[in-house]
C-alpha cells in the first residue's frame, strides 16, 4: 500500500498525503506528517481517574507515551484489544501520543479539489476538528485535524495551563 501512496503522491504533485484508518465502518484520514510510527497495542498501564478513552501510558523505547482509544472517544466499533489492534503513534508539537484504531488501510494523496468542506454534524466530533471530507472514487474520508483534536481540552491530554 505504501508503493501506491508514493505513486499517487507523485502523480498529484502537490497536495496533502493522508494516513487512512478505520474506526468501525468509517474511514478517517490524518496528515501523514504527524505520524511517527505504527505499532501493536501492548503493555499499557492504566492511569487512575482518567477519562475512559485514555487507556493509560506505555513504554515506547524509554519514553512514556499516553494511549488514547479513538473508538471509545467517538463511540465507534468494538473496543476489544487483540494482537491485531493497531496503535498509530503521533508526534504533535513535541509531544508523542498513541491512538488506538481498528486498522490502518492506506496512505492517500488528496488534492485541494478532492477535499470538500465538512457539513455541520452532531456533537461527537465537532467540525472544529475537521479539515473536511475527502472524496476518492466512491470512498469518503473524514479528514481530521489530529493536532487540533489531540491538543483540545476535551481530550484531556494536556494540562490546561500548558
Amino acid at each position: 500500500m505504501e508503493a501506491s501512496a508514493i505513486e499517487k503522491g507523485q502523480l498529484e504533485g502537490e497536495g496533502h498525503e493522508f494516513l487512512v484508518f478505520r474506526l468501525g465502518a468509517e474511514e478517517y484520514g490524518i496528515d501523514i506528517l504527524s505520524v511517527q510510527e505504527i505499532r501493536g497495542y501492548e503493555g499499557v498501564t492504566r492511569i487512575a481517574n482518567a477519562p475512559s478513552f485514555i487507556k493509560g501510558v506505555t513504554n515506547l523505547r524509554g519514553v512514556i507515551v499516553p494511549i488514547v482509544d479513538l473508538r471509545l472517544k467517538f463511540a465507534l466499533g468494538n473496543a476489544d484489544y487483540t494482537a491485531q489492534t493497531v496503535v498509530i503513534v503521533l508526534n504533535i508539537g513535541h509531544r508523542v501520543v498513541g491512538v488506538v484504531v481498528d486498522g490502518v488501510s492506506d496512505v492517500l494523496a488528496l488534492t485541494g479539489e478532492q477535499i470538500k468542506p465538512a457539513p455541520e454534524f452532531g456533537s461527537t466530533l465537532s467540525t472544529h476538528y475537521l479539515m473536511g471530507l475527502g472524496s476518492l472514487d466512491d470512498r469518503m474520508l473524514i479528514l481530521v485535524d489530529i493536532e487540533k483534536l489531540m491538543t483540545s481540552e476535551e481530550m484531556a491530554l494536556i494540562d490546561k495551563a500548558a
Partner: protein
Amino acid sequence: MSIDITEFYQTFFEEAEELLSDMEQQLLQIDPSDPDSEQLNAIFRAAHSIKGGAGTFGFTVLQETTHLFENLLDKARHHELTLDPTIIDIFLETKDMLSDQLNAYRQQTEPDSATYERICNTLKALAEEKGQGEGAAATTTAQTAAAGPAASGAMVIRIAGVAADNATSLAEELALFGTVLEQQHANDVLTVQLETATGEDDIRAVLCFVVDDDQITFESAAAAPSESAVVAPAAEEAEQKALEKDDATPPPAVDAAAVPAEPAKAAAPAAKKAASAASSENASLRVSIEKIDQIINLVGELVITQSMLEQGTADFDPVTHGSLLSGMNQLQRNARDLQEAVMSIRMMPMDVVFNRFPRLVRDLAGKLGKQVELETVGKSTELDKGLIERIVDPLTHLVRNSLDHGIETPDRRLAAGKPAAGRLTLSASHQGGNILIEISDDGAGLNRDRILGKARENGLAVSDAMSDDDVWQLIFAPGFSTAEQVTDLSGRGVGMDVVKRNIAQMGGHVDILSRPGQGTTTRIVLPLTLAILDGMSVRVGEEVYILPLGAIKESMQVKPEDISTVTGSDRVLHVRGEYLPLVELYRVFDIPEAQQDVTKGIVMIVQSEGRSFALQVDQLIGQHQVVVKNLETNYRRVPGISAATILGDGSVALILDIPALSRAPQDREGSHTGNHRSAATLH
C-alpha cells in the same frame, strides 16, 4: 575571510568567562599590602588573553577595557602601582564590567557605552594618579598594542596544518600585530615573518582560538633585536619557574594545571599558562546537557533490556546454557557499571556553587559594615547538575540572611566577647544517599521571643511551650520576617518560605539549629540526584505502584480491632497510641479486583511534610532503584502520581506522590479533572 571566525565565538566566550571567574577568585584572595606576584601575574595573564581574543573577534569595547585594565595590572606587578583595597574594589568592578560586556557580545549587541566610558575614565584616572606619568599610553586605541615602551622585533611564526585557503586570512590576522615582512605557505605550513612589538604570548593567546597551540612555533628573526623586553620579564620568569617546578615535581604541577579553579596553589596559574589552552581542552570536554540526558536514557533502556533478557533466561538449564548464563551475568555487571558511570557525568562539584559566595560575602559585608570570614568545606562533594542549579538561589538567600541578621556588627561582637570578624561556614558532605549542606554562622542566633511575638502578630497558632525546633520552623511560614527593619538585603519575609518550598521540590528538607549568642546553623538535606529514586514496589489488584523509599516508615499487617471509623466512612488506624488516617489506594485510584479487606492486605506507614498516614496496599513486591521519567512530557499531571518509571519487564509503573495522597480525601476528589470515573471513588 575563508575561516568563518564566528565559529570560534562560542569557544572564546566560554574561555573568557572562565578566565574572568579565575580573575575574580585571584582578586579576592590577593592581599593588597603584600601582593603575591604569582597571583598578579595570573590576573594579568587572564586580562591579557581576553584582550587578545577580543581583538581577534573585533570586540573593540571589550578589548579596550581589558587593555586599560591590563596596563594597570602590569604596573602593579612591576611594583609601579601600590595596591590598596580601593584599587581592588575598582578591579573587581572592572571585572564585572568585563562580564557584562562579554554577555552583551554574546547576545550580539554592543555593550552599554556609558558604563564603558565610566570604567575607562576610572581606570585612566587611576593610571594617571598612581602610575608614573605613563597614563597617556592607556588612551591609545591601538589594536593589541603592547604596554609600555615598544621595542619592535621581528620574528618568524610557523603555523603547521593550515590549508591554503585559510592561510591568507591567518596572515591577515597576524598583520594586525605589526608589519608582515614576508609570508609563505608550503606543505600546509604557513611561515610569516612579522615585525611587531607584540610578544609571543600575545600572539599565541590570539591564535589559540583559531589553531591549536602546538601547531605554532616561534623563532626570532636573526637580524632583529630579540623579542621584546615588553612581554613581561616577570611572565617569562614565572613560566620558567613553573617549568622548574614541573621538573622537580611533575605530577602535582600537572594536576594543578588540570584544575584551574584551585588558585591557591602557587604553581597553578603559571603552570596553567605554560600548558596553555591545550591542557584545558584535554582535561575536560564541553558536551551539551541534552546529549548527556540522551545517553542516560539509552543506558536506562539498556539496563531494562538486560533485565528483560535475564528474566527470559532465568529458567534455562545451567548445564546446557552455561556460557549464555555467564554471559548474562557479565552483561548485568557491565550494564550496572555503565549506568553508574553515566550518571556520574551529570554530577558536578559543589565548588561551582560555593565559588560565587566569596564575592557576595565580601560585597555584602562591606555594605553592612560587618567583618566576615567565609570558610567553605567539602567543595569537591558532587551533586547532580540539575540540583546544583536549583540550590544556588536558596543558598544565596540563606547566606544573605546570615550576614544580615545573624552576624553582628564588630562593636557588638567585641562587646559580646567574640572576635570582631564573624565566621560564616559553608559546608557540603555526603550522608548516605543524601548530600548535607550546612550554612553556619557564629552570630547572635535566632531570637525565640521575637519569633513567637511575630508569629502571634501574624495570627499563627503558637504557644510559649513550643520546642525550639518548632519555633525555628515558624520562620519558614509565608510572609514571616523578624528583621526590625526591612533592608534591601532581606527582611521582607518573602524569603524563607520560598527557600523551604524550593528545597522540598527538590526532594529535600531544611532544619535550623540555633543557640542565642552562639550562632545559627541551617542544614539542607538533598537527594544526590533527581534522576534515580529508591523505591518500594507494591501491588494493588493487578497494578504495580512505586513508593519513594524515603517516605516509608514501616509496613505492617493490621488486626480488625486497630481500625476505627470516623463519621462512618473515613477510617483511622491505631498504631502505638497514635491514630493515623487510613488511605486505601484501591479506592483512591479506583483499582479493580483489589483486596478490599484491610486486614488481608498490607499497610504502609508513610510520612510526608511532617504528617504520617497509613496506606493500604495488597502486597509488597520489592525494593528497586528506578529511573524517574516525567509523565508530563507527553501527558499531563495526574493527581496522586509524581512520575512514572519503567520496570524490568518493560512495562510502565507509576510513582506515588505521597504529599498529594496525604492531603484530605475531599481535596483529592476536588482535584480530579477526569470526572468520568470519580463517581465510583466517592463514598
